[in-house]
């Protein structure tokens, strides 16, 4: 004990050599396969069955869309090929699918409107962009006016008026969804606040509106807008044929939006309301500066998924004679000039891809937002 040299020093002055990682942390491919694909005999059978199924489906898809498809040529080549997609058909109809019958010389106006919209949406959704509230202001208040002026036209600004009968294709689909989101969010917020109001009459009106709209199919709402709105108003006020489904879509999605916003309002701790009231802040200021900013941030994923639903529901406006993107595909595919064996499948495949890219992109954004929010709450 007295001899100190027998004991090692308490502080090691040199670095210890790194140890090899314990085995099993990074498994070899063979271990991974055994663990994830062939852990039990049943699992092995499943693996084989599902691999065959997946490979077959993938092969069907690739050979139809790529390998056996007609890439160049015209109607004759497509008619001669019963196995693959007919892409020249899409190429020829591409402008029709995008603009409908919008006059050729004025299509730059559609492009400009869509470009402005795209810039604003990216600005609004990009998490690290500066001045996002300015983007919100522009998107929700200035943009609808600009879009209306550009798309419909104002004669005094040297923009000829284009009748809405000529509008069609992807333009209509995007217009419907943008109008839906721009109007449904504010109305939805009001309805959600109304539903949580302490005034019984306000609450009752909001509950009835929300529950009735959510209880009926969108098609019936469209029918109502189309057949009954002209009966509700004097003849000189009859809404335009495109305006009727737009009103329907705005009202329909605001009921769903209201439920999403309500979930956000309920998630805000009561202390926030009480603190604001204790400071003497009035109801509307409290909502505008304290509650809604927090509540709306929480429900961004919900808002996005409602928007995805809205985007998919715009396909139904075809029932009241509006030529949206899907309707344009339907019209294009029955064109007698292109009566080939795979025209229908090609049209549906293309439409499916377009819708899928939009919806999948949005759902990915919503998922990343969800992860971000979850992280924020944990830390």
């Amino acid at each position: 004990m007295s001899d100190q040299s027998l004991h090692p020093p308490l502080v090691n002055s040199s670095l210890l050599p790194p140890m090899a990682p314990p085995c099993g942390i990074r498994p070899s491919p063979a271990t991974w396969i055994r663990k994830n694909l062939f852990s039990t005999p049943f699992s092995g059978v499943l693996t084989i069955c599902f691999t065959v199924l997946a490979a077959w489906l993938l092969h069907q898809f690739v050979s139809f869309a790529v390998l056996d498809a007609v890439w160049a040529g015209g109607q004759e080549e497509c008619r001669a090929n019963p196995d693959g997609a007919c892409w020249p058909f899409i190429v020829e109809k591409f402008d029709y699918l995008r603009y409908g019958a919008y006059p050729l010389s004025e299509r730059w106006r559609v492009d400009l409107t869509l470009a402005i919209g795209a810039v604003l949406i990216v600005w609004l959704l990009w998490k690290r962009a500066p001045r996002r509230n300015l983007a919100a202001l522009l998107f929700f208040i200035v943009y609808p006016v600009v879009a209306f002026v550009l798309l419909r036209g104002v004669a005094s600004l040297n923009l000829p008026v284009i009748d809405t009968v000529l509008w069609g294709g992807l333009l209509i689909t995007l217009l419907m969804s943008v109008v839906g989101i721009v109007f449904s969010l504010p109305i939805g917020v009001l309805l959600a606040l109304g539903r949580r109001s302490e005034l019984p009459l306000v609450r009752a009106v909001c509950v009835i509106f929300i529950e009735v709209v959510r209880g009926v199919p969108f098609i019936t709402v469209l029918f109502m807008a189309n057949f009954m709105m002209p009966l509700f108003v004097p003849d000189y006020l009859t809404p335009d044929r495109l305006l009727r489904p737009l009103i329907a879509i705005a009202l329909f999605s605001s009921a769903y939006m209201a439920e999403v916003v309500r979930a956000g309002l309920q998630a805000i701790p009561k202390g926030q309301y009480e603190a604001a009231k204790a400071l003497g802040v009035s109801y509307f200021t409290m909502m505008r500066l304290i509650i809604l900013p927090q509540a709306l941030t929480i429900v961004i994923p919900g808002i996005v998924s409602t928007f995805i639903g809205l985007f998919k529901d715009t396909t139904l406006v075809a029932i009241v004679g509006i030529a949206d993107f899907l309707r344009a595909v339907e019209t294009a595919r029955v064109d007698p000039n292109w009566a080939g064996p795979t025209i229908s499948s090609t049209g549906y495949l293309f439409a499916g891809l377009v819708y899928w890219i939009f919806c999948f992109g949005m759902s990915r954004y919503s998922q990343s937002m969800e992860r971000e929010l979850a992280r924020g709450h944990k830390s």
Partner: protein
Amino acid sequence: MSDVLLAAPSRRSLSLHDAKVRGIIYQLLLAVSLLALAVGIAVQTASNMRARGIPLSFGFWNEAAGFDINQTLIPYDTLSTYGQAFWVGVVNTLYVSLLGIVLATVLGFVVGIARLSPNWIVSKVAASYVEIIRNIPLLLQLLFWYNAVLKALPAPRASIELPGGIYLNNRGLIIPEIQLYEGAGTVELAFLAATIFCGAFWSYARRAQNRTGKQLPVLWVILAALIGLPLIVFLLVGSPVSFVMPELKGFNYRGGHQLYPEFAALLIGLSVYTASFIAEIVRSGIQAVPKGQTEAAHALGLAPGKTLRLVIVPQALRIIIPPLTSQYLNLTKNSSLAVFIGYPDLVQIFAGTVLNQTGAAVQVMAITLSVYLAISLVMSMAMNTFNQRFAIVER
């Protein structure tokens, strides 16, 4: 009223600074404006309808409809009334919705559980299914199934022949018709008796288990009774059944039951689409059950199957049921997309053909909306009752 209040602001009496007073004023304003709007619309609608010669009453209900419906579950012909056409629509909507709910639930649970499978490829295939299907509009899927798959089948003369006298062509799936003879009623009676016996046995087994802790083989006894008893009676009375085989006559098949492509496309489309949402609900529901529950069940010596059946699933169901209800409602509402492919559901028959023939837009839409609202109400009530049975019993 507000003038008086402004003229005499006092702390004791009614004041605009009192939140209650302001509340009453807001509500009065709302009530007055809503009432004015409603009255305005009602007056305007009535005058518009008179001006256009649209009937204001429900008198059309008992008039002859004069159009035919190719798929009905209840008696209907061209001489029937609009009222009967309405009921055909309601029954068809309910029929396709109920079948769709059953199929979507089965498919959705299978896919949802497959997504949680430890097997990598199984979970990836299930995940791809969900991500592809739910991001494509239902209408596009319906049109695809109808126009690109079912309508692209060969014509009746070149039908695909399946074993058992089943034919598949672009007019649908034709299966042999079952014809019953005398004595078939006894089989039905036997089935009824078996059902009653099963109910009695089940409650007896429950009481026995509560008393002694021993489990009786309930499932096997029920299966044996439900299948065995009717089968024995069926053989005893000498198989009173025959099949009418469909035959090609002219351009179409005669005899046999026909499953129309409109119905099939709607059913497939609705089930496949809704299943992708149900799969996500099932997955998150099962994932929400804490892992400790599985471990505790294993520690108590429960077999894996029983762990799933008695511990995990009851707890997951509690989370799954509310969103599942709204998916069922969505499916029912989405069945109105039938109008695009020509399946005669409520919207296609009533809000479509009947509305066009009679012009009575307000009455027809009011009835249609009420039917959907009633379905929503009944379904949420049924699911709430079911939900209460599964709710946690807290001490």
